[in-house]
């Protein structure tokens, strides 16, 4: 129900109300009203037919780096 899936914006329709998004080759049209600042190329989370948030890749990579560091530290420490 509260599922949200990441997709890349490939086109924004005139007026900015709708956008085309792509996810692993699957394309669909979603509402864009809730993330008016989004632009083509952004990754967004899509929920109930609307893009609801722009994904922050840097933050994602930071998380990954943090985990890897923690785990290698733990290993090193073990």
């Amino acid at each position: 129900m509260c599922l949200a899936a990441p997709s890349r914006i490939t086109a924004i329709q005139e007026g900015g109300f709708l956008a085309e998004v792509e996810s692993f080759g699957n394309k669909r049209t979603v509402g864009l009203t809730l993330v008016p600042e989004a632009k083509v190329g952004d990754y967004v989370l899509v929920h109930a037919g609307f893009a609801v948030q722009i994904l922050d890749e840097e933050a994602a990579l930071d998380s990954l780096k943090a985990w890897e560091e923690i785990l290698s530290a733990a290993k090193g420490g073990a």
Partner: protein
Amino acid sequence: MHKEILKRFRDPELGRQMAGRVRERLDRLTDRLGRRANVMEFCGTHTAAISRTGIRELLKPHVHLMSGPGCPVCVSDYVDIDRIIALAGMSGAIIATFGDMMKVPGSRTTLLEEKARGADVRVVFSSLDALAIARENPDRAIIFVGAGFETTAPTAAVTVEQAVREGRDNFFLYSLHKITPPAMMALLPDPDLQVDGILLPGHVSLITGRGYWDFLSRDLGLPGVVAGFEPLELLSAVDALASLLLEERYAVINAYGRAVREEGNPSALDAMARCFDLQEGHWRGLGIVPASALKLKPELAPWDAEVRFPLEKRSAAPPKGCLCGEILKGKKTPFDCPLFASGCEPARPVGPCMVSHEGTCATYYRYERFTR
């Protein structure tokens, strides 16, 4: 790009290492508390993800991952379902709603059965689809039954605004939308529960921001972690919560940084504020919770199904033997229910917790009914 990131977030090797670390930390916490920590995942999508990835089973000896009332379908009240079924019987009406709502039992029947008997009930994936149906059927009343928490409510709000802009007078919202904090406040202080910390709903937080949850540490002295949904995100959120508890730091932190901002999504919050008022809400299991239901503002009354098609609110008793109420509160698990998997199952649910993909009973039925 994000594809690669997702793959890493699901990396089995990294996951197993992370699980090891989490277990070790949780065991330290168990030692400290003298019992396994009680961690509640409020959100049904978390409930499902934790079961599906096997994390609940993997961590069972180390932490009690309790499922909370965070499935918007499950907390919908009989009274509302009965009223929606009554609206489905109106000549010419089309009910549009999310697939999960179809099987929620009212006091006598479900939308799914009414559809089979001839009611025009359509499954949509978005409120936008319901609005499109209204455009295609200008002579019929389309009632969109919106259910969901803060993640979903803004999508219904902007759809109603679009209907207003289009001057569409045959589109109506039946709002079952609810906000989460009042339910938490009603639930968490319960001394039976002994909740030590909360995994906070990641997708609600997209909209609300992390700061929304500060009341937990401030008012209840509970730590919380906003969690994502990938295996590594779930494990690292549990890890973070264990750290907070070990450090006795009862703060709310964000472990879903790729999606959740401090301030949330201001556009979405604005849309909710423009369209909805808070009223008391009927929560299945919790009863009436003040200021928890999102209902359209009076100026949007022409698009409000409850105003436009007023119906008596008759109360109805929940089915005999169903423990949904206790399960939604986290006080019981589905295994405590005598009907679980014997009389109540996803194909023929007795209570709403067995309906939604994220309902606690449905999730446990689907993924944890037997253990290996």
